[in-house]
């Protein structure tokens, strides 16, 4: 049996140990925020945090996660009370179809936890493994900057910061 902490709650998993984390999250734990995109660890739609680092959950067997800490987008906030990164993505209207956004948000969260004031290059490098086929990248970069300001206790007013 594999046991790990998901969004602050300890869960014991019934699935076979070689099952990808994504299937366990969506199927067994009913956390549907992380998405199945390519299934090959290439598109980033399935990204969640393991011990604070972004991981492609579709290629990560749960056997690697015994006694580890997993965070999904559900752990950052809810529709009624979104976390700062989620709120910033909403404020900037950074989603088009939205399929990649949970992964983008998780990568942004990991970035902002280690660098509270990332520049454009740092944001682009951190989010590079996530693909957005709609092309909302400019808004996504703005959203990450907005979230950084909020998390630093200096929230932006309605106006958005210019992006290079």
């Amino acid at each position, binding site marked *: 049996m594999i046991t790990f902490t998901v969004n602050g709650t300890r869960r014991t998993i019934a699935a076979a*140990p*070689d099952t*990808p984390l994504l299937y366990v999250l969506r199927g067994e734990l009913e956390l549907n925020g992380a998405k199945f995109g390519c*299934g*090959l*660890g*290439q598109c980033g739609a399935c990204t969640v945090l*393991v011990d604070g*680092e972004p*991981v*492609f959950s*579709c*290629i*990560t*067997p749960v*056997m*690697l*996660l015994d006694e*580890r800490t997993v965070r999904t987008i559900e752990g950052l906030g809810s529709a009624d009370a979104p976390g700062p990164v989620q709120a910033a993505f909403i404020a900037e209207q950074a989603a088009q179809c939205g399929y990649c956004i949970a992964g983008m948000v998780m990568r942004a969260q990991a970035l902002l936890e*280690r*660098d509270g*004031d*990332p*520049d454009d*290059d*740092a944001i682009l490098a*951190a989010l590079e*493994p996530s693909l957005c086929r709609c092309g909302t990248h400019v808004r996504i970069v703005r959203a990450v900057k907005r979230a950084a300001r909020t998390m*630093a206790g200096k929230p932006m007013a309605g106006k958005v910061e210019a992006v290079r």
Partner: protein
Amino acid sequence: MKRVLLLTLVAAGCGALAALAYAWHGEIAPISPPPAATFDRAQIERGAALALIGDCRTCHTAPGGTTFAGGLAMPTPFGTIYSTNITPDPETGIGRWPLAAFVRAMREGVDREGRHLYPAFPYDHFSLTTDADLAALYAFLMTRTPVVATAPANQLPFPINIRLVLAGWKLLFFHPEPFKDDPSRDAAWNRGRYLVEGLAHCGACHTPRNLMGAEIRSRAFAGGEAEGWTAYPLDAQSPARVPWTKAALAQYLREGWQTDHGVALGPMGPVTENLAEAPAQDIEAMADYLASLGAPASETATPKAPAPDASGQRPQSAGWQAAAMALPTDASAGRRVFAAACAACHQAGRPLPLGGVDLALSTAVAAETPRNLLNLILRGVPAADGVAAPIMPPFAAMDDTALTALLDYLRRDIAARPAWLDLAAAITAARRAAAPQTTANPAKGAP
């Protein structure tokens, strides 16, 4: 007694003067930057090809910077050296360098002003380059767009920060000789040797270095290291399980990957990106020479290609479902990790670039140290721009226990090699190197 002392002093004085005379190089007078029209078009094109083979832009371009404008930080065991601006800007580049100054830099490691250059600039290889090729390189560089850019100051400790010290280094380790063809070999092999030993400076990474940072010539191509990666031996000690043929080398150098050998990673990645654009016949020649350095084909394993099915197609399965392997109940932890995380691509019987390399034939698994294998697992193989090339997601979520079990399994059960020693230390080092950089932007002031 006094006379002996005096004689000793005089001798020492003469020695010091002789040393200074050896070490001292005069300035070569600057010129007005020559107009681009003064260079021959065909010569510029030859220079462009040679610059690709010489990998010039890889070191002389900073991340996000303009090509050839320099400023790349090059960490060495002695300190950090910054590459210089080799665009023809008159003040910050080489715009006022006459051809003679360029030739002297390439052949003797001395800049136009007469200062010794650090051997991070591999003049110990470039010195083999012919007059005609140096003139072509000069023509190419002098016709680039000038960029105003000054490299940051090198961060080197005393006494290495004194350039005159390099005269002593050169006296000990730098003995340039003009390139001579081997008359017993054909023209292509000689061309390949000229490029590999010279401009391409393969030995700069693939030859071990001594404590003074000089290549150990007696062990040419016996393997070295670069930027936290192992540069595998290219000689008979090559750990490759499949012999490197000329055709395989040519494909690898040009495309950055090869079916039986895998992907060019780490500092080798940019090398193959440059060679992809270089003239095919030069790459063929380099492959010809490099293949001749390796072990005789009979001594190594033969490649196993996946068997085609009845339709003549290679197996096309990939993905987690395809990998569901019936594991015995007593399967080792490493085998379980392999089955769950690796087998979907590496045992699906699908060749590169869409499947993974057969790990029984992998050089990284067969190598002397686990360094490259760990770098590969933790960082993955990112998608290449604009070409169909192999990819691999990073498996950074593997903790040390899982990595250790996996590497033991790969090494012993898949590659049938003795276990690596000091795996724990290697994992720690690879993890540290692969970790995302925390912010270090000096331009950013306090909030």
